[in-house]
């Protein structure tokens, strides 16, 4: 009898041992984020961009890095609150045998895990990592991602993926479909929720930012010298097209970049879903330098559409004064001809990663710095000449005063930057290589520049001459009116305080009349991702 009992006991215990649970009987674990009186806080550290949605300026969008999500924000609430009031689903995921057997994100909704698709096509098991975001329109955000290189389309109102129809042009003298491996074959249109920004670019005799020759890429044809575009960065929309910068960092430990490229997609949102395809006319524009980041659409007073691309230059990770390894510039693309018509050299500036901030008069364009406490800028009047880039002169025209009759477009350069003030209790520049962002108000009343290391905003006064023919004086066109500490400096003692501020935006309108609450918003990366409001001209 005992033997039977024991046998039963043993049998039952071993039977139990086969009953592993999947931890799903209760609710999924929740990480709860509490907002402060000024900030909405979310996960993943540094937010992926911060942008106003087109409209009256009461809505914005930001990106959660991990897990990836686009969060639409209602600025009429203080602190900002999510536009989506219902549950926000994760990006869909699909099992992927090739990449560890895991369920992985399928952000482009092609039915296959992004990592699997990437690996299949020779780009390893990369899933998308959120980069920056761009408001295509009030109901559509384009989120750029790296690793799995693409633009993902998301509705900021619901934070759900939005469809787009992909159509690959047929082969022609100016377009080769096989250079776009993630796109459907010509004639086989597909509806997805993202467009790939992986393109094979072939260049003979090109060198990377370290001076090494560009060899063949196993991810492309493996024969011709070239590279696959990657590190999808800024986006702009103009004249029925999307322009996407790809900075193609080859090796971060050596600050090694492939030549900068701007991808061009036709984008037709008169259809539903919008139709997009690599531009058959010219799908890849080779830029004049390395590490293109911000892309800005600009229309000259004469109505000419230009695309301005910030070439940050190769920058290394670390601290110190030698992080910028190649020159910065702003390249000018003619949206009609898709030609690189001009470049504005700015020296080893290390331009910030955002689009240019253009003042209300359309005269100056400013951009922050990636590794210093400064702003850089150009005089947009130098682009007014309708013949720029159309004459017999070799392209691109260098707008540094050396290409008469074209003027010098440089306003603030590496050798003559617009220096921002340093917070007295901020970390020394030698220890904290800061980065800055800048925004200018739509009415031209003021501007704001953020300082990552100092946790401080500089309030800027902009004063441009009435006539575009009048030369700008860098000494008077811009000045720091005052500073405002909005976060803690990046020092050891502030370990748990709001700090590491990045993007800024100015809410359009008159505070107290057009809206209540803060007039300036900024993103912060620590101790949690946050978007916070602050009063610059609005009353507390």
């Amino acid at each position: 009898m005992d033997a039977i009992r024991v046998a039963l006991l043993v049998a039952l215990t071993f039977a139990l041992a086969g009953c592993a649970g999947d931890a799903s009987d209760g609710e999924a674990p929740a990480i709860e984020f509490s907002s402060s009186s000024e900030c909405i806080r979310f996960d993943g550290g540094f937010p992926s961009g911060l942008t106003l949605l087109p409209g009256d300026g009461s809505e914005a969008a930001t990106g959660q890095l991990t897990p990836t999500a686009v969060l639409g924000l209602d600025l009429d609430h203080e602190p900002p609150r999510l536009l989506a009031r219902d549950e926000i689903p994760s990006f869909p995921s699909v099992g992927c045998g090739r990449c560890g057997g895991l369920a992985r994100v399928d952000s482009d909704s092609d039915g296959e895990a992004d990592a699997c698709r990437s690996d299949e096509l020779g780009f390893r098991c990369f899933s998308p990592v959120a980069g920056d975001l761009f408001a295509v329109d009030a109901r559509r955000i384009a989120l750029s991602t790296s690793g799995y290189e693409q633009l993902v389309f998301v509705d900021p109102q619901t934070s759900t993926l939005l469809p787009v129809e992909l159509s690959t042009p047929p082969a022609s003298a100016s377009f080769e479909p096989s250079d776009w491996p993630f796109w459907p074959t010509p004639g086989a249109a597909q509806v997805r929720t993202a467009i790939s920004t992986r393109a094979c670019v072939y260049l003979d005799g090109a060198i990377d930012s370290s001076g090494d020759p560009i060899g063949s890429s196993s991810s492309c044809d493996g024969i011709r010298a070239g590279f696959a575009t990657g590190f999808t960065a800024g986006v702009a929309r103009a004249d029925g097209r999307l322009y996407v910068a790809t900075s193609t960092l080859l090796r971060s430990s050596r600050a090694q970049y492939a030549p900068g490229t701007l991808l061009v997609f036709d984008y037709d949102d008169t259809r539903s879903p919008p139709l997009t395809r690599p531009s058959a006319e010219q799908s890849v524009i080779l830029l004049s330098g390395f590490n293109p980041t911000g892309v800005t659409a600009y229309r000259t007073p004469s109505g000419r559409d230009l695309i301005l691309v910030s070439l940050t230059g190769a920058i290394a990770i670390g601290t110190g004064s030698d992080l910028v390894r190649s020159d910065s510039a702003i390249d000018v693309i003619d949206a009609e001809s898709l030609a690189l018509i001009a470049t504005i050299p700015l020296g080893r500036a290390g331009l910030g990663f955002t689009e240019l901030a253009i003042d209300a008069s359309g005269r100056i364009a400013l951009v922050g710095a990636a590794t210093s406490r400064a702003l850089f800028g150009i005089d947009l009047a130098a682009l007014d000449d309708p013949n720029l880039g159309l004459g017999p002169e070799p392209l691109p025209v260098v707008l540094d005063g050396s290409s008469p009759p074209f003027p010098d477009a440089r306003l603030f350069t590496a050798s003559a930057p617009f220096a921002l003030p340093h917070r007295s209790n901020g970390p020394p520049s030698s220890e904290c290589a800061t980065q800055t962002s800048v925004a200018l108000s739509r009415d031209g009343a003021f501007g704001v520049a953020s300082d990552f290391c100092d946790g401080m905003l500089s309030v800027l006064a902009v004063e441009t001459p009435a006539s575009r023919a009048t030369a700008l004086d860098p000494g008077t066109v811009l000045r720091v009116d005052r500073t405002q500490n909005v976060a803690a400096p990046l020092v050891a003692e502030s370990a748990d305080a709001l700090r590491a501020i990045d993007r800024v935006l100015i809410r359009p309108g008159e505070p107290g009349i057009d809206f209540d609450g803060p007039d300036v918003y900024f993103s912060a990366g620590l101790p949690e991702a946050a978007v916070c409001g602050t009063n610059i001209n609005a009353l507390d």
Partner: protein
Amino acid sequence: MALVLAAAMVEATVARPSAAESSASELDTSDDSFEEVIVTGVAPPSMDVLAGATATRIATDSRLAEGQQLADVLAEIPGVQIRRFGGVGERFEISIRGSRPEQVPVFLDGVRLDTSLTGASDLSALCLDVLEEVQVVRGPGASRAGTGAIGGVVNLVSRRLTDEPETRLRVSGGNFGTAEGSARHARRIGDWDASLGYCGFHTEGDFRFQQSRRVIDGVSVGSGDTVERINNQSDRHTALAQVGRTLGQGELRMTQLVTYLERGVPGSEFDQRARSHETDLSTLSSVAFGTPLAALKGASLDFLASHRFEQSDYHDPDAFIAGDSIDTETGVHNLTARSGARLERALLAGEHAFSLLAEGRFDERSSNDANQKSRYGGALRAELESSWLSQRLRISPSLRMESWQGLDVEWIPGLHLLATPIEWLDLRAAGARSYRIPSFQELYLPDRGFERGNEDLRPEDALSGEVGATIRSPFDSDWLDFQLEATWFWSRIDDSIAFQLISTNVVAPVNTGRSDTRGYELALRYSPHAWLRILASRTVTDAEIADTGNPVAGIAASQTDGRLELGPADLLKLVGEVHYTGRIPVSGGGAASLSSRITWDASASLDLAQLKRLPFGKLSKSLWISVRGRNLSNEAVRDGRYFPRPGRNFAVALESVF
């Protein structure tokens, strides 16, 4: 199942001696009341604490029979929080009273196990099988151990050597492809007592889990999909050899510990690393000798020399975007020499024990991606333990002087008081300073652009105090057999070392500001009947950054554990456990937190050798079969934001001693 166990219980009443003969609790908080064990061979070190310190010791035998692991045993001690980061073979961290793991030194028989590389110990490299006791000292009582002892000290006591030959075998298996086995044999060979123990562990480890959701502004973000956790395979081998003998009036003891661990490092839930893995080999060799001093009554001397070696390799072939693959190899050597003297005297109507300890240590790190670094240090410690009024009042002042190459001399004073005004009441109070020198990793982490060490770090500096009381049942009745311990504690840590972002994309360790911790611990042991034992403990920890009042990340606001044992402890045990973990802040600014949770564990254990009608009693002293279930309600639990833990799982074990 219940019927079978019930039948076994009935059998137990016939086969077992009276309940009064069975052992009392294994969890005791005072040195004096610990379950007595007759020592027939060379004894392991006793609990090295000053009277008045808050200490707990747990005998491992019955816990092994229940299928517990080292992390389980530690987790039930008040004030101790175990943070698990994955499946059954994964690394776990120990926190005592809100400390970080590097603020809890771990010893094996009084010899340090923590690595100078990180300052922390990987307790998952050890198995419970080779241990006889787990001792934990919390708060100021730990500070006399020297650098790092800010939160507390863990001392693992290896199994004692025995005159009588003893063989112990254990096998177990469980979910996730887990198998474990151990063997130990101890015997006397001539004048020597010797033992050799081995335990091996293997798990496939992968499990399914629910992805976490974010709740932002009241809106749930994320779908909570159930997915696979990969790359959790783990293999561990641990061997412990010991020999000892009497030498003159003294005792000589030599120990060799070898651990080898190879396992996957699965990364965070949103970036699971399929091929990342680590391999760790470590050894600890020690020789200890203690002897009374014949020429001086009441005097004794002891000496110890030890060498610890660790080789850690980490490899991740799957490079991050535009990054290089990772392949690091790091070796660390620690040499320690220690000698102590103790003199006991009756003086001034009291009894006094004065002890002196001198210690020297040399650490060296070599690495394939960093320059070789070394440092040496030394310490002197003086202590006086005085008692009066037939030990009703005990006062123990102590002072430790410690000096490390390149750092200032540190003085660590401490004072412990223990009063027993009435037989059933102990009152305790203690206060001490403690500190921690930066680890090699913190000082000399190679500059990889995005991360680097900081050679300008200052040691962490702490001050801690506690008051407490232990009430034992004053009643001579089994039904009122209880012990209640209550301790209120506080500590202040200055210059805490933490990895912080120091530039736009560079992380380095820095001395941060001050943090304050206060809280209380309650522990109740109640055994109204020999077949019924109840243990309950509750710890409330309020750890905050002094400047901002924000909570310190990672520290659960409260932890409550209950344990109910039914049955005659040496024949059959049915154990139910409930664990409540309060909200865990997971953000430096207090903005993010993990919800509170309740989990349930249970085990059933039966000693087949005690069943008379079965033949096992003739073959072995004991033959325990056990089944243990964890997380029975299959909750989605985690101790860190991105690190899920498994759902319901079971393990079955068979252990024999003969």
